[in-house]
């Protein structure tokens, strides 16, 4: 797992909050989508409680404004539709008693060395 050479600018977002804090769930996807629309290469790394936002049984049930707005699925699919890649690490899955099968399709598992490698090579790392 590396950045491709083609994109001039690379941003790695880090999402640490989970389903207990839905007001924080959508903004990283917003920013990542806009970055992809700016032709940046974009990844979001979900760690700590972040992987809970990718649970396939959750994304239609929560959203940043509760029942008053779009569900989380909308923001995730907007980002992935623009080429944003979603990453998790195994210890964070363990922390939340999750397996990769509990998550939506397309999520990639990396480890700490990969994260550090991606972060060191990115133009910006933005953490939430």
């Amino acid at each position: 797992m590396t950045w491709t050479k083609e994109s001039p600018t690379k941003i790695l977002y880090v999402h640490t909050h989970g389903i207990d804090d839905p007001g924080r769930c959508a903004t990283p996807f917003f920013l990542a989508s806009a970055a992809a629309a700016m032709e940046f290469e974009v990844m979001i790394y979900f760690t700590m409680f972040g992987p809970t936002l990718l649970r396939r049984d959750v994304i239609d049930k929560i959203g940043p404004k509760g029942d008053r707005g779009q569900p989380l699925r909308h923001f995730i699919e907007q980002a992935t539709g623009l080429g944003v890649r979603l990453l998790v690490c195994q210890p964070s899955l363990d922390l939340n008693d999750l397996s990769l099968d509990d998550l939506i399709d397309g999520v990639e598992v990396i480890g700490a060395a990969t994260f550090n490698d991606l972060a060191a090579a990115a133009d910006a790392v933005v953490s939430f």
Partner: protein
Amino acid sequence: MVRRRLLDLSINNSTLREVSLSESAASAADRVLDCAGMSCPLPVLKTAQAIKDLAPGQVLELLATDPGVEPDMRAWTRRTGNELLSVSKTDEVFHVLIRRVK
């Protein structure tokens, strides 16, 4: 003006609208993208999508009411290598003219 009427009509229609060159002035857009009423980041996302339907050299006119649209489109055009021709505001609606470069 014919073109003026087309733009006004397009306020309530979120789809891309063709503006024929015969109806518009030389500086007018080849297409109009109506993002009025949409908030950030939708105007950026839809502009990125819409510009791909234009040929290099053609001009897109973005209509938007999001207050951040001017700085956003300055950043977006600078990063994507497209050309921001003008930004004007009429009745709370920003009109952003962008030329597809590459």
